[in-house]
């Protein structure tokens, strides 16, 4: 019984990360136009009308959930130390912020020339499609930051250390 409790407690953090990912994915599945989402576009023909279940919250919820989940998973991968609890969220925030900034017009414009040079590369095509067709959203950046902070707090509370 005590062993089962310990295991359950150990699974709280990864479980909450997984739950966050599911919530974020459900926003795409339920509220978004699949034709406008890269990983869902091939199935767009099967989608009924988007539900708008999450309302305006759905605009930033995926960024929050994604940042929370990957910050926690990084903390767990780095080890349950105080250093890991700081480094994981910081690392993910750096990644998330970089990707968001990539969508800023002044930055994405710089990527046009490499696209012309490699028009047939699927990886570059996706990266540039993300950068050039997406747009920079400070709301996403704030949501990602919040997700990282919540992940830090959750990990700290779970370990009962700041």
């Amino acid at each position, binding site marked *: 019984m005590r062993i089962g409790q310990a295991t359950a407690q150990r699974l709280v953090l990864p479980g909450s990360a997984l739950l966050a990912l599911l919530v974020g994915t459900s926003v795409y599945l339920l509220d978004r136009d699949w034709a406008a989402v890269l990983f869902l576009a091939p199935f767009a023909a099967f989608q009924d009308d988007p539900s708008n279940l999450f309302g305006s919250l759905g605009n930033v919820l995926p960024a929050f959930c*994604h940042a929370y989940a990957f910050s926690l998973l990084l903390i767990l991968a780095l080890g349950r130390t105080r250093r890991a609890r700081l480094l994981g969220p910081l690392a993910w925030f750096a990644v998330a912020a970089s990707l968001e900034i990539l969508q800023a017009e002044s930055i994405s414009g710089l990527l046009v020339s490499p696209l012309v040079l490699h028009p047939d590369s699927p990886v570059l095509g996706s990266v*540039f499609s993300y950068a050039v067709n997406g747009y920079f959203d400070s709301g996403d950046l704030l949501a990602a930051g919040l997700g990282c902070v919540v992940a830090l707090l959750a990990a700290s509370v779970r370990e009962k250390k700041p």
Partner: protein
Amino acid sequence: MNAVMKKGLRSFAIAALLAVGIATTIATGGSGSDDGFTPPPPPSVGPTLNITAANGSEVASAVVIAIGLSFDFGDITDQNIVARPGDVQTLAKGTAGFYKSLPPGYQLALENCANGGTVDVTINQANVNTITVGDSIVAVFVDCDDGLGYVISGTVDITIAAVQGDILTDIFLLGMDIVMTDIVITEGASTMTADGDFTLTLDSLNFPRTRMSLSGTELEVGSDGMIVTLADFDHALQLDFGISPGVEVVVADVFGRLTSSLLGGSVDYDTTLSIEAVGDDDPHVGEILITGADDSSVRIVIIDNSHIQLEVDEDGDGTVDEFIDTTWAELNGRQTPPVTDSTINSETAPILAREMFNAVTGFGSVTITAGAQFVPVAPFGQIDAMDVSGDFAALQIACNLSGTATVSGSKAVTNTYSSGDNLNATFDACLRGGEKLDGSMGVSIASFDQTPGDAYVVSASVDESSLRRVFGGACFSGIGTFDTNYDFMFTTTGLIYANSSTTDFNVWAGGRSQQLTGSSVSAQITVGQQPVVVTRESSGVMTSPDLTGSFSYQSVMPDEFYADDDGTTGPYTGELLVTAADNSSMRMVAVDEFNVRLDLDYNGDGMIDTSIPTTYAALGYDDFICQ
């Protein structure tokens, strides 16, 4: 598990997490709402070439030539595919010049083209009595010459995409999805290439107004070394015969993107004012806006059917930074030297007409003879038949009727000519057929090809230090250098395609000398029948000691005449436009084989101010002295 392995697994897990995290971020478009993100295909990117005053003319020229080429390929498909009233049966002339009734799915065997080469055609036709959407034709050409004025190689794959009306009448709509693969079309000295696909729509439902449109996502076209790619283009050409009887009004609207490695990038082009032309004249009104990187642009403003102004905006601020005056001839790559200090009026016109007639006829006469010397009975043809190779000393050849030709030079192999061979000939009253030659000629061969069914094709640079040619009743002398192509088709009637161009050449005729610069002549000659018929087009600039300044000339309608004229006749159809520096002009309009009319426009406003009837006999042959 030891510490090293643990550390390795941890590093792997972190790297995997970061990779998955980044990939999922990109795959979802980075959160946000969905209205800012469009999934692949990759985004459209703006044009990349900076347009400047330095490259404005070059960019405009590339766009104009590419648009012209696309219409040329549309025309070629049109004339080979669509039935004309009076023809019989259905779908395909087979893009090769034959038009047959074929059962569904019938595959033609390899066929010879009329004047050489082959075409292999496969046709799938649902109903032999009509064209149906989905019918297809695939034609594989190998040096196919059907007497249409060009030789074609490559593959054309056509699928009928839309049909309305009856193509055996004048009123129909025909849509075709066309894939061209490695198409090479040789027309005289010019070569055009095409690779890619487009949709061609021929619409004459509103006959006598017809419309041809070409659209596609990617088509690579080339002309004489310039290769460009057209992307996302739509070119429409409307022809209206109903506005004025006998007059064809042409309206063109185009847009698309042109990419050229030679220019170093891509530009977008769009007609902001429809382009209009009458008949075969160059357009007289219209505008095309060409946009490059950072909104830099050059606007082609058509002033009239010879003059164009280019407005270059280098920084995209909407203000024109540079105006460039140019001409259709320059934009189309038909660059001619500038015309200076000349005028045309009723006093100078008769002299100009005489000088021009002699210069044009003489240049054609003394240049076409170079290629003719490779006929088996002619001196170069006789050398070819000898076992001669390497450097060879002077060989005296008996001309087949009388006189001699002394030939020396170098020849790589026996029994044929090849690139780099050199021939020097001195003619002494060398009489062959209707031609008598005196003087000398040096020929440097660029290419020589001789295949069964095609007597020979030769391209060469020629130096005529002084060559006199008498043919029929005409006598001309030539001094200068020129490049020439001569294609002698060895068929029942026989056809010769020949063209020559020069940067500087002197023609002597009727005791007078005319200097030609930047000039060219192309001709098609039907031989083996009487009378021998010549179709000729000429262009260039002429200077004569009897006239002040220089004059440009250009065939607006090909001359057609009998080769064996007696010195008093000339073209029975054709029109030559001669223009002076002050834009005054003279049109030499053939009336019949004896008479010609000179239409004068004193101020270049396009209106005829006076017409002077005259005869070819009066144009200089009466005091005929060969120099």
